[in-house]
């Protein structure tokens, strides 16, 4: 479990995170949901240590990440895997070498054979067993994300962070990547945090959802509760998705349950 307590961050006096407190649950897909520019990426960068929050604390299963003990930080970092928005694959290395890289760097005690087995296992797990010799420039966006996932989970990560895993992908590939993240999370009991603004992902994989709006947490709950929310900003966010609107229309025509949960105001956006 990752506990985030009262995180604040501003850039040049311009507050981006205004005191966020939330928890990410173990073995679940925790979604950070919110519109563009609400500070989702900044929050994630604070959590993984790429950025220093102005105030607040972050605790990984009891280990405090935000104090200044270098060895504790390093210990936590070894358990973190991250999937970046564009994949962030090392473009001078093949797919195989990319996946092997964290093992080489972080677990020097591993033998070459053990590493090979682990890399082959991870590449197979993300469905890329035949792409090991390809360079990042030769593969598609969806494949890059898969390699990113393989690289993130290769050192047996405890925490997996994904910044907009669906950005730049077609809907079908998006769903596949979402499913892969969901399956991996539940197979290995990883604490996964996924940034998204996509309602498809919410419905698909949202075990626990945290809604951010203008640097504040306005709501959290699971995917069944989200459609019944009474938070106006969240309602507006959900029903600006045309798919959800269409679903709601069908629902209304058949007098389903969704209609009761939403006000006309939200529907008329």
């Amino acid at each position, binding site marked *: 479990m990752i506990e985030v307590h009262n995180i604040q961050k501003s850039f040049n006096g311009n507050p981006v995170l205004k005191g966020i407190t939330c928890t990410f649950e173990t073995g679940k897909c925790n979604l950070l949901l919110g519109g563009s520019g609400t500070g989702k990426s900044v929050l994630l960068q604070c959590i993984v*240590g*790429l950025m220093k929050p102005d105030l607040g604390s972050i605790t990984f299963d009891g280990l405090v990440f935000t104090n200044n003990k270098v060895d504790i930080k390093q210990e936590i*970092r070894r358990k973190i895997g991250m999937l*970046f928005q564009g994949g962030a694959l*090392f*473009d001078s290395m093949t797919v195989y070498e990319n996946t092997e890289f*964290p093992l080489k*760097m972080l677990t020097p005690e591993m033998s070459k054979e053990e590493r090979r087995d682990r890399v082959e296992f991870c590449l197979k797990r993300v469905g890329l067993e035949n792409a090991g010799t390809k360079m990042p420039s030769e593969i598609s966006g969806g494949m890059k994300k898969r390699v990113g996932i393989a690289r993130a989970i290769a050192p047996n990560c405890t925490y997996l962070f994904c910044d907009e895993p669906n950005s730049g992908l077609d809907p079908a590939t998006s769903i596949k990547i979402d499913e892969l993240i969901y399956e991996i999370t539940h197979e290995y009991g990883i604490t996964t945090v996924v940034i998204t603004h996509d309602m498809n992902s919410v419905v698909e994989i949202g075990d626990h959802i945290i809604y951010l709006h203008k640097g504040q947490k306005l709501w959290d709950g699971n995917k069944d509760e989200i459609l019944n929310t009474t938070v106006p900003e969240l309602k507006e966010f959900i029903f600006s998705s045309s798919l959800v609107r269409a679903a709601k229309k069908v629902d209304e025509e058949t007098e389903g349950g969704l209609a009761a949960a939403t006000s006309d105001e939200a529907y008329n956006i």
Partner: protein
Amino acid sequence: MVKTFGEFLIFMQSMLVRKERLGTLWQRTLDEAILIGIDSVFIVAIVSAFIGAVTCVQIAYNLVNPLIPKSTIGFMVREMTILELAPTITSIVLAGKVGSSIAGGLGTMRITEQVDALEVMGINSASYLVLPKIVAAMLMFPLLVVLAMVLSITGGYLAGTLSGAMSAQEYVEGIRTDFVPYNIVFALIKSVVFAFLVSAISSYKGYYTKGGALEVGAASTGAVTNSIIAILLADYVLAAVLL
């Protein structure tokens, strides 16, 4: 300006904390040495051979006084190339070639989040990416400068003898006159200093790139211009201090 310089010093210092294992860094240094050294041999060879040739032809053209022996041409080619042209021109050429590639490479890694990916793994990206580049440059620049010296003098020989400005014997006699071995040492010291300046400035420019592809281009350009200015300033300071 002062702020930039302070940031630069902090950047240099950040490379030296939380270092990776030496074996890893050495392997990275060898890879970088190949990129910086071997891949630059061709351009350095072309430039230095022609500079030697042109220097020789122009000195011959200017030396019309029959009282001055023809061997003076060889002597002057040697002095000019060893002291100034080989180390400085080679380093300026390398500032263009190596500097832009270092800044462009690091800038691209920065904007595509590859640097962040290293940091998230707990790797000190400055030490892992930049330190090997600087060490490799400081190893390879002197070798390239030695190559440039040899080829410049050879270029001068070919141009001088083929154009009939003097005989082979006169040229060889010239380049052997009053030879001061310290000049070679001085040139090598210069090349190591220039190597540090080019690789460190270009790394700094690339490593702190913000934005997109346009900024990567700007970082490369900035790396080259700043490196060249630094080379020329250092050239003057070293000449004043060491000669």
